[in-house]
């Protein structure tokens, strides 16, 4: 019997996710996969493995877990309060999870989608080339209390590392490129759209995230009736109520509502992670600028492995000690003592 991670108590929306499935758009199936893909890369860098490994995605809160063998875990994405047999665990770090120890992951303190990685990933049977649950398409399902997930191996992994992640949990500016339907919106509407301060509406999930603002809606010229066309992740769709929706990894493959632009891939984690009420703004940038930003973002992902730091080091080994953001990276898993 191979080792498993037992879910003793499941939060409301736990699912297994990886990079998703490509190649099925023509059959009506979007890629799916982790809502915050950068968090998968970060977890992989922490444990020292490939980002193809599946991880547990936890929406809003985690749960209680126990492994039947010693393994190594990493915690990334939305910051959640985590303890191991009662002792606090640092977020954005890798840790030993001894067999039988209780791992408790509570509610999100910042962000929406948290990730629990295990060394070498989970060994569930891939379906159509991936382990990701595509809840909208009926592939896989939400995990429940009592479920067990097989561990891929007893590989030791690499505990005791941390990473200072790119800050993306509070909303902020989203960079947008034009797309083939942007021309349906007047210059005036686009200008107003890019000057509007939005808030992340509570209505949001893996299919799309609604943006709320006061004032007039952002309607296309000639109304809403356009022929149904391809949807890509990050498209900003304006539905009948005039509010923009950023379409996410489990959206439909086609849709008949006009889209004003597309959020660039490296800002999608910011959309996913923004908690209800978080401020968001859309800024149009040129294709050239977007390509530069994405090229840099990909280089940064490649360099993640060289950015991980041992959690505990002899200060004598750290020549540039003062340059480390010890506070941001090292105690973030605890509740903020200054927060009321």
């Amino acid at each position, binding site marked *: 019997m191979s080792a498993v991670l037992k879910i003793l108590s499941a939060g409301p929306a736990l699912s297994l996710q990886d990079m998703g499935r490509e190649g099925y*758009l023509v059959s009506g199936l979007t890629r799916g996969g982790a809502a915050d893909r950068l968090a998968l890369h970060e977890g992989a860098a922490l444990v020292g493995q490939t980002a193809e490994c599946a991880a547990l995605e936890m929406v809003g809160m985690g749960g209680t877990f126990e492994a039947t063998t010693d393994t190594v875990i990493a915690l990334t994405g939305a910051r959640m309060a985590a303890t191991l047999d009662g002792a606090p665990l640092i977020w954005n770090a890798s840790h030993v999870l001894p067999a039988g120890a209780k791992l408790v992951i509570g509610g999100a303190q910042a962000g929406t989608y948290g990730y629990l990685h295990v060394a070498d990933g989970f060994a569930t049977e891939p379906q159509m080339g991936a382990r990701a649950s595509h809840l909208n*398409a*009926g592939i896989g399902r939400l995990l429940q209390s009592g479920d067990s997930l097989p561990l891929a191996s007893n590989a030791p992994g690499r505990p005791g590392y941390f990473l200072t992640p790119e800050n993306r949990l509070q909303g902020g500016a989203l960079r947008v*490129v034009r797309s083939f339907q942007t021309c349906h919106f007047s210059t005036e509407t686009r200008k107003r759209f890019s000057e509007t301060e939005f808030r992340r509406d509570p209505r949001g999930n893996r299919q799309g995230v609604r943006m709320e603002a006061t004032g007039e809606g952002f309607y296309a010229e000639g109304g809403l009736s356009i022929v149904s066309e*391809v949807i*890509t992740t990050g498209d900003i769709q304006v539905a009948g109520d005039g509010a923009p929706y950023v379409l996410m990894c489990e959206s439909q493959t086609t849709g008949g509502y006009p889209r004003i632009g*597309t959020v660039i891939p490296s800002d999608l984690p910011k959309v996913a992670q923004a908690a209800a009420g978080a401020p968001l703004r859309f800024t149009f940038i040129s*294709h050239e600028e977007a390509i530069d930003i994405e090229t840099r973002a990909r280089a940064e992902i490649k360099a993640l492995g060289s950015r991980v730091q041992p959690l505990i080091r002899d200060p004598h080994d750290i020549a540039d000690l003062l340059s480390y953001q010890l506070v941001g990276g090292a105690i973030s898993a605890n509740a903020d003592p200054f927060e009321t």
Partner: protein
Amino acid sequence: MTDLPRIDTVGLSGIIVSFAEAMSEPANRAALAFRAAVEAEDWPEVSETMMSLVSVFLAVDLVITPAAAIEERLRALLITRDWYAAPLPKGRTLWHVPTVYGTDLAPQLEEAAEVAGLDPEEAIRQLSAARVRVLTLGFAPGQPYLGELPEVWNIPRQQDLTKSVPSGALVAAIRQLIIFTAPTPTGWRHVGQTAFRNFQLNAAQPFALSPGDELTFPSIKRAEYDRILSSETPHGGAEREAIA
């Protein structure tokens, strides 16, 4: 507009070739034929292609591939023929999907017939004789939009949504039919019920249909439908043949 077919970028994810501003039979045929031609070119920069009703999308990583390079190749391919008059691609399948019309299994047949101005028997006769084509797949995995039906079937969607129609439901509106993949709320009218499944996750071929496949929906009795269900006949009792 006169600038059709039109080429444009889709965010940083790829390139779209649009053949019309609205659904039309020639534009759908053009998209079908053009997608087959793009697939045959097998350009290494194109990771996948898909078609919606009147356009073809090429997934291309525009961060590493200049859009202009692909657009130039597309323009060169576009001028090789009149795509609106191009023959439909080879390798398609004709499906005959047994269907119960009306009864409590498909309770809106009579209402749909009335909106179309037909009596129910004539509506069933027309629907069971119609041969329609997969215009595109979407909304749910493997779910086909089928058309076009004769003009008399240009019936609007109903104002109020039906709360849920089951998997395999055959629904009608705007000269099109859909077989539903999963239970769905819809404004389309539920005229027939099939045991056909568009998407079977663990099958060797999870998706039954491809764009361009053709279908008929011969009328069967309720008892036959029950027999198909209980015997778990593959593809809901549908027979298929290659389109020569």
